[in-house]
Every structure is written in C-alpha cells, then in structure tokens.
C-alpha cells in the first residue's frame, strides 16, 4: 500500500488532520472527567464536574431538546408539503423560491438575527418568548429539510406515480398521504436528523436572539467557556458530544441511505 513517497505524504497529511481534529476533542473529554486538569490524570477521575454541569445547565439542555423537537415539527409541517409543491412544479419560479428560502445557508446567522431583532425586537411578548429563538432555528434548518425531501422527490417519477393513483380515484390530498410521503420517507428522515442536529448545535443566531432566562446548550457552552473553570467547560462540552455525536452518525447514515434511493 505504501509503495511510493507520494502515498506516504498523503497518509501523513491524513493522519495529521485527524490528529488535529481528534486531539482537542479527547482533551476535552478527559478534562471533563479529571479531578484537576492541571495536575493531570494523577488527580483521579471524577464525575463531579458532569454533575455540576447538570446542576448549572440542565435547563439549557432541556430547552435545546425542546427547541430541536419543536423545530423538527415546524420544518416537517412547512418543509415537506413545500418540497412536494416545488417538485410538482419545476420551473423558474420554483427555483427562485428554493433559492430564496436557502438564503439562511449563505447569509451569516448574525446578519439574519440582526434582521429579526430589528423587525420584531420591539414586540416585547414575542421577543422574550422561546418561540422567538424557534423562529431563528426554523429559518436556518428549513432549507435542509426542503432540499433533502426535494432531492428524493425529484429522483422518483412522482408525476407518473401520482397519475397512477389518480387513475385509481385518489384525490390530491389522498395522493399526498398515500404516495408522496411514503416515497419521500428516506429524504424526510435524513432531513429530520439534519434539522435536529443543526438545531441543537445552533449558536450564531441563538446568541443574538436569546435572553438571560432562555439559554440553549451552545449559549450555555459559550457562557461556561467564558466564566467557568476548564473542567466544568470540558464536562459541559462532553455532555454536548454525547448528545450530538450519535445524532451526527444517524444523520450521515440516513443521508447515505437517501442518496442510495437517488441512484
């Protein structure tokens, strides 16, 4: 395998990049369960930092989970029918609409948050409500749901399937439930996992939209990085990893599965 110097250089670069990404992750996991990071592992392993994180930040963890699930419901309700409509009417207008709702992928979250704040900041009841953050999350994750479903719907012969169902007497709504949704499931699943993963990790918009009483997990992380000792920050990061890594793996599995449908 390693016959040529070229291969060796490639391997070295790959390993170096992996180490660059992995080492700090391991450090943070380790620091989160070490009694005193500065003394090293000899100070013993402990779960007290994790417990402390739980005491301090349990609310933020639950808020993030609640937000992610609400965000999922919203993106499903808005995104799946929209993807269907876009798939049924491919054309310039559909392309432009898809392009427009994809803006939050391109425009930095900070700018979007400023825009939302300027328009709705003065509506006090909404501004301090958790749904204000939810709007930001839906805004950011919706294009992923739409595109994921759309790519699957574009790959199957939706029109013929629907014409078949229509010839058997199914109306538009029935066809949507019986034909469109089941066939789009791989895309919906991949989109759903992406939405939840991204919502739990979202920081840029959330930091601007949150209030002191409404801290999500990443906001809490930023807070702990700024004000807590390294072990607590690490333990909190560890909690985040435990939540996000399985989600990420499920998301990659579902996306690969959806991609197979496309072939």
């Amino acid at each position, binding site marked *: 395998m390693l016959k040529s110097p070229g291969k060796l250089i490639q391997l070295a670069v790959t390993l170096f990049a992996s180490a660059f990404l*992995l080492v*700090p992750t391991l450090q943070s996991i380790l620091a989160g369960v070490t009694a005193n990071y500065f003394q090293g592992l000899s100070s013993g392993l402990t779960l007290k930092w994790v417990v402390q994180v739980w005491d301090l930040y349990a609310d933020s963890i639950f808020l993030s989970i609640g937000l992610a699930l609400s965000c999922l419901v919203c993106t499903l309700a808005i995104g799946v029918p929209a993807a269907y409509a876009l798939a049924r009417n491919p054309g310039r207008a559909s392309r432009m609409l898809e392009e427009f*709702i994809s*803006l939050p992928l391109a425009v930095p979250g*900070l700018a979007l948050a400023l825009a939302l704040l300027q328009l709705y900041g003065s509506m006090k009841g909404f501004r301090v409500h958790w749904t204000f953050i939810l709007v930001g999350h839906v805004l950011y994750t919706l294009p992923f749901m739409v595109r994921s479903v759309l790519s699957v719907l574009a790959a199957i012969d939706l029109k013929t399937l629907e014409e078949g169902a229509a010839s058997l007497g199914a109306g538009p709504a029935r066809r949507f439930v019986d034909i469109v949704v089941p066939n789009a499931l791989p895309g919906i699943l991949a989109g759903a996992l992406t939405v939840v*993963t991204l919502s739990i990790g979202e920081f840029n918009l959330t*930091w601007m939209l949150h209030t002191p009483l409404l801290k999500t997990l990443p906001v809490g992380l*930023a807070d702990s990085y700024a004000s807590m000792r390294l072990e607590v920050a690490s333990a909190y990061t560890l909690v985040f990893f435990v939540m996000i890594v399985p989600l990420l793996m499920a*998301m990659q599995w579902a996306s690969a599965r959806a991609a197979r449908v496309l072939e």
Partner: protein
Amino acid sequence: MSSRQFTLLCLLPLAIFALAFLALPIVRLILGSGEGERGWGIYLQILQTPRYLSTLGQTVLVSLATTVAALAISTTAALFLVRNRFPGRGALLAILTLPLAFPGVVVGFMIILLGGRQGLVNAVTPGHVVFAYSVFGLFLGYLYFSIPRVLLTVMAAAEKIDPSLEEAARTLGAPGWRIVLDVVLPALAPAMIAAGAIAFATAMGAFGTAFTLATNIDVLPMVIYTEFTLSANIAMASALSVLLGIVTWALLLTARSFSGATVAAGG
C-alpha cells in the same frame, strides 16, 4: 379541490413563514442600514474608515488562508481515503467528519485546549507558546470546521472519477504526478471550487469561533457584534451585515453553479 389548488395550499405555510421571518426582516435590515446619521452614505463611510477597511482585509485574508489550507489538506486526505482500503479507514473518516456538527463556540474551545494558556502545546513545549487568541488561533479554528466540509465534497467527487481515466493516462506513459495534475485535479476542480467557496463564505461569516477566542481580533462578524451591542450603532451593524451577507451569498451562488452540493452545518 383541484391538483393546482392543492399544490398552492402546500406552498402556503412556506410562503407565510418566508415572508414574515425572512423577506420582511431582510428588507427591514437593509432599510435600517440607511437610518443612521449619514443615511445611505454609511456604505461610503465603511470604505472611508480605516478600522472597517482593515477589518474587512483581515477577514478576507484569514478566510482565504483557511480556504487554501483546507483545500490542500482535505483534497490530499480525500484522495487517500478514496483510493485506499485499510483497517482503520472508517475510524479516520469518522474522525475527519465529526466536527461537522460542532458549533463555532465548541470549535473555539477546541483551539483553546490546543493553544490556549492552559493548552496542550503550551504544556508540552518549553517556554510560553500560546496562539489560541491570535489570528493564527482563529485560522486554526476556521480550518477545524472547514476540513470536514471540504473533505466530504471532494471525496464525493473523487469517488465519481472514472478509474479508466487514470489508467488511460498510465498507458500513455504519464508518471504519477502528471496524472494528478492532468487527470485528477481537473476532474476534482468543480468540487474544489465549490468546497472552497463554501469554506471561504463560512469563514467570512463565522461568529462563534471568533466570539470564543477573541480577546482582540477584528474580524467582520465580531465588529458587527460590537457595533450592535456595545456601541449600539445599529445602522452600522446593519450596513456591515448587509455587506457581509451579499459577499457570502454571491460566493455560494457561484459555488453552487459549479456543483449542486450543499454542505453546511454549524459554523
């Protein structure tokens, strides 16, 4: 209800949401940028203020460096991982794509763990080696979240290269490095341009990493943030946001014309 009506009904929730929370806020942001003392002249003011200009320059430079480094590292790794099957390959791939879901703040913390005052490099090297809070730290942070994105895009393209293209070059007597230059890189070029544009745009707009690391780094998102929160200069914050938004959006539009890929998460 006709099919046409049903389709329109399906679009309705999206239309309402996009109008209320995307179109109108963006219009408000653009109008807001013109509501300062200088009116629309604020965009001229950006170009005339050395602090904003140097910030802009610095942001572009760091983003450019990130893009070049991420492309070099990720393309090398992608080619290696696509062409070789070996025990541990799956693990390497998992490690290299893991940070895809890390928000910028977490990436910032990773860099602090590496190069901060209590970081690994400072601990294992003699003397005082702290780079996390410098521009170099920011560069490393951006690199940290760019590597997985570029890697995935380039790997997908590398897997699609017809293996007989390289074989054809070999039968014609081309040595390995020429094959990379004449066959592999041209085949990867669209994906590399797309991935590069994504990396560049993400780095330009990245806020979380800079926020965690920054003691004193002037990059555009940080300046927008301080204008908004500390100086309460809402018009300037809006104008800079509009500028940043247009630049990143235009870049990604270009990127998408080269490949349909969308890889984005966190940042």
